């Protein structure tokens, strides 16, 4: 059977990790290429890069990071952040990424999902969704609303409907980030994850809130997620990916144990 995937997420600004990552011997790593290699060796099943570079001049720095990552790690990786056109997607894919993720850009221009899927195949296009829990109202029947710009702007779009729309427009996967849980390290938003994952037929990566191994167990079982995105839990060396997988494996979750 298919394994559940454990996916570290690296935030990159101007070609550097935004927060240093502590590794063996407490060495601080600021280079995303070295960090990716380290996680590859720890057994990451995939890696997500999120480019938070503000200026468009610095886009080429990210492409150089992507090229260097592609030369040293041999698992899939995706790149998101600031991708506004098929040409932006093409540049990242030619630099060596398997997948591109679109988030706010797809909310503003949903046709971007179709265009990307048509040009590169559905498997290339990940729909990133930032979601906040809100009161149920007619336009938000699920009680979860899509937000953009890091949660500052409410879009009036229902999260479940947007997930289904993204699927029908050709997204190959959904990365579902709970803004409420993000950064808390208090656990994933299980209800939201189960709601979306059980109602779309494409894989769902749960994101936001991982602080301990039990959180991953919950979201991969009760939450029905196909994959779990992790950040602080491994960046701060609370756990290694290997520890997390050993725990999940012991709890009966199928994860890849040989690499």
């Amino acid at each position: 059977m298919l394994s559940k995937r454990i996916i570290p997420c690296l935030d990159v600004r101007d070609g550097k990790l935004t927060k240093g990552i502590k590794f063996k011997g407490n060495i601080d790593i600021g280079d995303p290429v070295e960090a990716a290699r380290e996680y590859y060796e720890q057994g990451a099943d995939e890696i997500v890069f999120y480019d938070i570079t503000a200026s468009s001049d610095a886009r080429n720095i990210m492409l150089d990071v992507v090229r260097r990552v592609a030369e040293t790690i041999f698992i899939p990786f995706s790149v998101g952040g600031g991708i506004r056109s098929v040409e932006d997607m093409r540049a990242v894919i030619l630099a060596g990424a398997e997948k591109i993720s679109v988030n706010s850009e797809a909310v503003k221009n949903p046709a971007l999902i179709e265009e990307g899927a048509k040009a590169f195949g559905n498997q290339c296009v990940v729909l990133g969704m930032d979601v906040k829990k809100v009161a149920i109202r007619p336009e938000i029947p699920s009680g979860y609303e899509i937000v953009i710009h890091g949660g500052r702007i409410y879009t009036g779009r229902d999260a479940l409907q947007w997930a289904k729309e993204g699927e029908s427009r050709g997204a190959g996967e959904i990365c579902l980030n709970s803004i409420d849980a993000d950064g808390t390290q208090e656990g994933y938003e299980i209800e939201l994850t189960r709601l979306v994952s059980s109602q779309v037929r494409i894989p769902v990566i749960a994101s936001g809130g991982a602080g301990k191994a039990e959180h991953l167990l919950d979201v991969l079982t009760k939450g029905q997620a196909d994959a779990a995105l992790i950040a602080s839990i491994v960046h701060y060396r609370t756990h290694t990916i290997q520890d997390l997988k050993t725990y999940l494996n012991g709890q009966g979750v199928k994860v890849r144990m040989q690499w």
Partner: protein
Amino acid sequence: MIGIIDYKAGNLTSVARALHYLGQPCEVTDDPEVLEACDRIIFPGVGAAGEAMINLRSQGLDLRLREWVASGKTTLGICLGTQVIFEGSEENDAVCLGIVPGSVRRFPGDLKDREGRFLKIPHMGWNHVEFSRPHPVFAGLSADAEFYFVHSYYPAPADDRWAIGWTDYGLRFCAAVAHENLVAVQFHPEKSGAPGLQILANFCRWEGNDAQ
């Protein structure tokens, strides 16, 4: 020299990068004469079978590929490259190369896991491959090794003797084919970490004889 066939099917550079990492000289090309001179050929690709066949035909590569495999050139198919060596695919109802007897089918929409939940399509992520017999290209792999898959269609050889690797995703499908000088896999060895690199390294050394 290893020739990587460029037939405009997705990004083919990841296979080239993996071979560079292994120190193996290779060239991504659509030039039949360059490929003719290569001692080994890799036929990769992602995308749709119908479009792939249109591109292969327009470049005259469909006939040449059949010739190369028939004449004993050591060949590795990957993902879409593996699918189009069959006779036909349910994807776009494409008539394919017919090098391997059998067809390529879509995963049924009502595929369920053991708990009765619908399985996601594409089959995306890491899964086991059970090898039914030893083969030089699949030598040295741990029994627990997993490989990275991403596909909505799966190969179904007409004759199980062509199949060497099997994978379970709601149904049991053929994930690897081996026959004489041809090996073909549904997963992506270039994206499957150390076990995938092992397969590519084995292929680069393989003389093209199936030890069946």
